[in-house]
């Protein structure tokens, strides 16, 4: 049994044993889980995948004379930002696209540029065009502004992602007779290919399946800088069927994350375009897991062959929200490049980069070994499998007709 405080002391002295979530697998096998738990202090995880529910907010500073962009309209490089906040606070969503983007008018649309790309360009140190119109008030008389602006010019620039880091995700296939264009990529007809999106054994929430160490306030690698877990993510759904090891068999937990955009790097935050679907941001996250006891170690040493996920048809089941899957496969099978669905051999591909996830876990390990990154004890845990959370669909209810007086 160790405490986070004890582990931090070892990190400061340069004496902590830190392994990545890949390295821990063989280490635990060779040493046995009891001894491994005594020797290892931290396991680092990583993931690098498209995460739709991402965005950033900015305070752009006050112009002279002042303008109240709040309640008006504003764009960064032609991409609309949300202005329903204070005078010069702007919120940019990763999936926002320019008003004049043709979208799917000529199907499948390209979605070449949007919020995710603006974030990538800003992080790369580029200037973007800020254009805004406002209604004008006594205290904020100006009605229009057009200026170039970079991250450096802003007071605050904060990445805030309401849902990232999905604990498990569907394998997407297409059983129909035509190609379909989805957020899980291009899916060829008649089970032509299968796309998945998780780093499997390296993915943070697979290595801490009941959120015993990852919670609100956990310090993390985010976009090449440091960030924090802010809350559970939207659609956090911990009460799902799990394997004997406690690993969810279907999409389950999520986290909301926050961090200073000015510290981040464009290699680790990438604007992303899905043909026929839209724009997205690919986010890098690495989370350290303090090995406080043997149970936490056993869970962190989870292997791809022990993690399973459902195969879902995206031509009918997913869009119509019909339940049922075409089977279950392990991440080891998915990573081999081929799975069997309905007796057919189907080539697989990932949307989440395992190679980059491995690099993130390695960088975080390096930071901790150098004493540059200390672990945090979470302020509050995330709702877990005993929370009783029910994942709700939207039940549509007709508007009530107004009573005539």
């Amino acid at each position, binding site marked *: 049994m160790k405490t986070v405080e004890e582990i931090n002391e070892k990190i400061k002295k340069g004496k902590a044993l830190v392994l990545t979530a890949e390295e821990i697998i063989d280490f635990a096998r060779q040493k046995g889980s009891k001894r491994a738990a005594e020797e290892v202090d931290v396991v680092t995880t990583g993931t690098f995948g498209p995460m739709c529910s991402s965005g950033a907010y900015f305070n752009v500073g006050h112009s002279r004379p002042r303008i109240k962009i709040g309640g008006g309209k504003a764009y960064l490089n032609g991409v609309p930002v949300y202005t329903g906040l204070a005078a010069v606070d702007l919120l940019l969503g990763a999936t926002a696209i320019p008003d004049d983007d043709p979208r799917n008018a000529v199907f499948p649309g390209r979605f070449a540029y949007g919020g995710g790309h603006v974030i990538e360009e800003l992080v790369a140190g580029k200037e973007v065009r800020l254009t805004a119109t406002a209604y004008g008030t006594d205290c904020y008389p100006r009605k229009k502004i057009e200026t170039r602006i970079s991250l450096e010019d802003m007071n605050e620039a904060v990445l805030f992602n309401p849902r990232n880091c999905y604990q498990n995700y569907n394998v997407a296939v297409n059983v129909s007779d035509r190609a379909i264009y989805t957020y899980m*990529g*291009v899916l060829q007809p008649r089970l032509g290919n299968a796309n998945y999106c998780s780093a499997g054994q390296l993915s943070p929430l697979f290595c801490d399946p009941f959120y015993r160490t990852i919670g609100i306030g956990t310090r993390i690698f985010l976009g090449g800088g440091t960030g924090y877990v802010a809350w559970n993510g939207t659609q956090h759904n911990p009460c799902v069927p799990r394997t004997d090891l406690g690993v969810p068999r279907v999409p389950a937990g999520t986290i909301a994350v926050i961090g200073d955009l000015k510290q981040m790097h464009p290699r680790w935050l990438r604007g*992303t*375009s899905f043909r026929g679907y839209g724009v997205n941001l*690919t986010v890098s996250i690495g989370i350290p897991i303090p090995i406080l006891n043997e149970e936490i170690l056993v869970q962190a040493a989870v292997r791809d062959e022990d993690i399973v996920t459902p195969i879902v048809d995206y031509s009918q089941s997913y869009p119509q929200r019909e339940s049922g899957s075409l089977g279950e496969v392990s991440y080891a099978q998915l*990573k081999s*490049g081929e799975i069997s669905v309905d007796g057919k051999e189907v080539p697989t591909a990932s949307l989440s980069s395992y190679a980059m996830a491995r690099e993130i876990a390695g960088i975080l390990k390096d930071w901790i070994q150098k004493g540059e990154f200390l672990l945090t004890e979470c302020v509050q845990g995330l709702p877990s499998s005993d929370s009783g959370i029910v994942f709700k669909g939207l039940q549509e209810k007709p508007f009530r007709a107004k009573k005539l007086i």
Partner: protein
Amino acid sequence: MTTTKVVLRFPPELTDQPVTYKLIKEYDLMVNILRGHITPKEEGMLVLELTGKKKQLDRGMDYLAKLGVETQRLSKGVKWLKDRCTHCTACTSLCPTHALLVERDTMMVSFDRDKCIACEMCITVCPYSAMEVQV
């Protein structure tokens, strides 16, 4: 015998010319059609693998040039922008010739230009614009 892969672009007034027939009959070339496409404005595009004697190949290419068909060597057609690639592997299951391939140990993607037939599937599926058609 020499083999070369070329992209032919036809202006609308040439789409009715029996170009492949002439390449076979008059220049004694083996023609393997890898891909064909006619745009709504009736410009044509053909990707061919041509095999024949060097001299005949050169004569065939001269014939195409004189006719007004724009030709381009295929190996210069599709470019992998390595720095933009995240090695997500989304392209690899749909690449028909496995020019884009995953090394399973490292889970990193590689691109073999010689195997590419410029079907441009990768350009459609790459979320990071890491594949580009060179003009």
